[in-house]
């Protein structure tokens, strides 16, 4: 009951015309920067920060948070239409989203992404509202061994992302691990695989690899043939641009799965939305009745990662607001903003600033509805880009990729790296190496190595620390089970074959 009263006060704050306006401004800006690859919410919030010093803190928080979760909505657009992941978490959306677009279901894919984002975004806010304090305690019980187990579980997803050859998938993942370890080693200050280049000391930015390998590799692969017609079929009529009932029904479980996994992983300060989207995709595929269809354009393959990506926002705000602990670049800059306004997120935040906390929660419900209303009509508009002729569209993809990479770092060196990764992406396609495991290794490699080394430092070199803690032991068991999945399947096919031969 108390929650409802507080929420009522929150809505009173959120529905003030000025706050409604700032909420809309935030989610609108968020959508724009989300659509643009490279431009991210962290940079946008940092640049707008000085402008918010004159605003009432509640309005400012509502707007900046709007940018944060609004950007998650926009991230899927280029992933689905052009195979250009707008941010790290949308890499997983590329897998089935882009294939749906190739099958003429671009509008449906965008629609499912928006609906899934809405459902999961709302679930994330509900979680933030009801579960924040107890979940914050849970987040603190997570330490390096648990993170290592979580990353190991994520890495074990490679078996679900592999195509025909498991060896090739594993090799691609190992290359990802190699790229992940480039740069300065946090623990020893040694620089690894930097080839003596200052630019390499911070490692290779994820966006460069993802855009080069996914988007440009794909374009180069398509360039082999001299196609004439339009790029992808775009069916006419609004009806064909929206998901069908059957498609939505197929996504029922994915909506739920994405919402819950995204929120729980979001609460952990050391995880992040990319691993959330990979894991919820993996879970969706593992429990699916037709796992072999994943990667060919199934709607669940879009709904699960997009949902996870969006409910992660609500989760990430839990440690930020109740503990003052940021888990990502964007929440770190939000924390800096809070401090500049003289607000101190922490255990006392909800007590000391109820208006701000509940106003923010209420505004997130409102903002998610605004985003749905804003994004659905944009779908037909965005889908038009696929009507461009191939010879116009391909150079545009090159252009967007360069702009996206340059926007992150303003470094020409990164543009050269982009060219190198484009070649790698093309070679992988040509030689039938799956690209998703490379990204998986790249995203998880760094955190996994770190968590392992932290764990062993804590236990003075005793590997037992990884299995003596219940949460970590459970996750490691799941990881091993996942890795054994293909063996089990193979045994099963042998058994069936044997049965047939006998019968």
């Amino acid at each position, binding site marked *: 009951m108390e929650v409802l009263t507080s929420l009522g006060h929150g809505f009173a704050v959120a529905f003030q015309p000025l706050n409604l306006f700032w909420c809309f401004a935030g989610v609108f800006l968020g959508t724009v920067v989300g659509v643009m690859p490279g431009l991210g919410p962290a940079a946008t919030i940092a640049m707008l920060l000085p402008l918010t010093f004159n605003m009432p803190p509640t309005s400012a928080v509502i707007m900046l948070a709007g940018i944060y979760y609004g950007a998650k909505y926009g991230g899927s657009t280029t992933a689905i239409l052009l195979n250009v992941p707008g941010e790290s978490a949308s890499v997983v959306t590329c897998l089935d989203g882009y294939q749906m677009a190739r099958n003429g279901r671009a509008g449906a894919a965008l629609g499912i992404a928006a609906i899934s984002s809405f459902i999961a975004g709302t679930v994330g806010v509900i979680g933030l509202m009801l579960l924040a304090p107890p979940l914050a305690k849970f987040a603190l019980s997570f330490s390096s061994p648990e993170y290592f187990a979580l990353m190991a579980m994520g890495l074990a997803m490679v078996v679900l992302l592999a195509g025909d050859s498991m060896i090739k998938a*594993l090799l691609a993942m190992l290359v990802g691990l190699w790229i992940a*370890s480039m740069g300065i080693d946090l623990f020893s200050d040694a620089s*690894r695989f930097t080839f003596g280049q200052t630019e390499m000391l911070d490692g290779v930015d994820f966006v460069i690899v993802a855009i080069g390998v996914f988007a440009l590799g794909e374009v*180069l692969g398509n360039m082999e043939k001299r196609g004439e017609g339009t790029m992808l079929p775009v069916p006419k009529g609004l009806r064909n641009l929206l998901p069908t009932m059957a498609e939505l029904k197929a996504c029922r479980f994915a909506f739920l799965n994405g919402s819950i996994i995204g929120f729980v992983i979001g609460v952990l300060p050391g995880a992040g939305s990319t691993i959330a989207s990979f894991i919820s995709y993996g879970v969706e595929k593992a429990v699916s009745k037709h796992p072999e269809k994943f990667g060919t354009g199934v709607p669940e393959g879009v709904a699960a990662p997009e949902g996870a990506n969006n409910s992660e926002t609500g989760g990430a705000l839990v440690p930020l607001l109740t503990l003052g602990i940021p888990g990502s670049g964007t929440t770190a800059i939000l924390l800096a903003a809070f401090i500049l306004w003289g607000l101190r997120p922490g255990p006392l935040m909800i007590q000391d600033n109820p208006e701000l906390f509940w106003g923010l929660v209420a505004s997130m419900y409102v903002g998610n509805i605004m985003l749905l209303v804003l994004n659905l009509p944009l779908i037909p508009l965005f889908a038009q880009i696929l009507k461009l002729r191939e010879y*116009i569209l391909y150079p545009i993809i090159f252009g967007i990729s360069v*702009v996206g990479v*340059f926007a992150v770092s303003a470094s020409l060196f990164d*543009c050269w790296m982009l060219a190198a990764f484009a070649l790698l992406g*093309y070679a992988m396609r040509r030689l039938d190496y799956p690209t998703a495991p490379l990204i998986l290794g790249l995203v998880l490699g760094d955190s996994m190595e770190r968590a392992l080394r932290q764990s062993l430092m804590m236990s003075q070199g005793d590997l037992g620390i990884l299995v003596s803690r219940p949460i970590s032991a459970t996750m490691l068991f799941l990881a091993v089970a996942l890795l054994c999945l293909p063996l089990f399947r193979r045994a099963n096919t042998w058994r069936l074959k044997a049965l047939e031969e006998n019968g």
Partner: protein
Amino acid sequence: MAQSKWMRGDVVSGAVLAALGAYIISEARGWEYSTQEGPGPGFFPMWYGVAMLVLALVLMVKSAMQPDSGKPVAWSGVARALSVWAVFAIGMGLLKVLGFLLVFALMTLFVVAVMYERPLKVAFAAAIGNAVGFYLLFGLALRLELPVGPLGF
């Protein structure tokens, strides 16, 4: 034209990856494997380097033992893709000299006129249209910083 066993994609890429694995191992040997405080910087690379080397060798052997799949490589397609890549790579190298918009226009011109053999008129229109569109959207509307050449654009 039957391909030699040693020219198959899996054998060649396996060899390249095996070499990469060997390189990673040799680099990792230069870093401490284990320190007084715990695993060192060489710990993780050593493990994935070894895994890469072993898996790449398995891939090579497995592929060399298999009968020819008989799928010929369309070298003309590969040449097309690689020439586009080469133009892109050169363009990235010229960003400093020419600026993004000029490189982007030239790249569009090349793709439209050479790769897709459209009339020059179309190619020029596409190149100018793309460059102007990008300038309006990214440069003016979004105020993004683009690589600028000495000509100021």
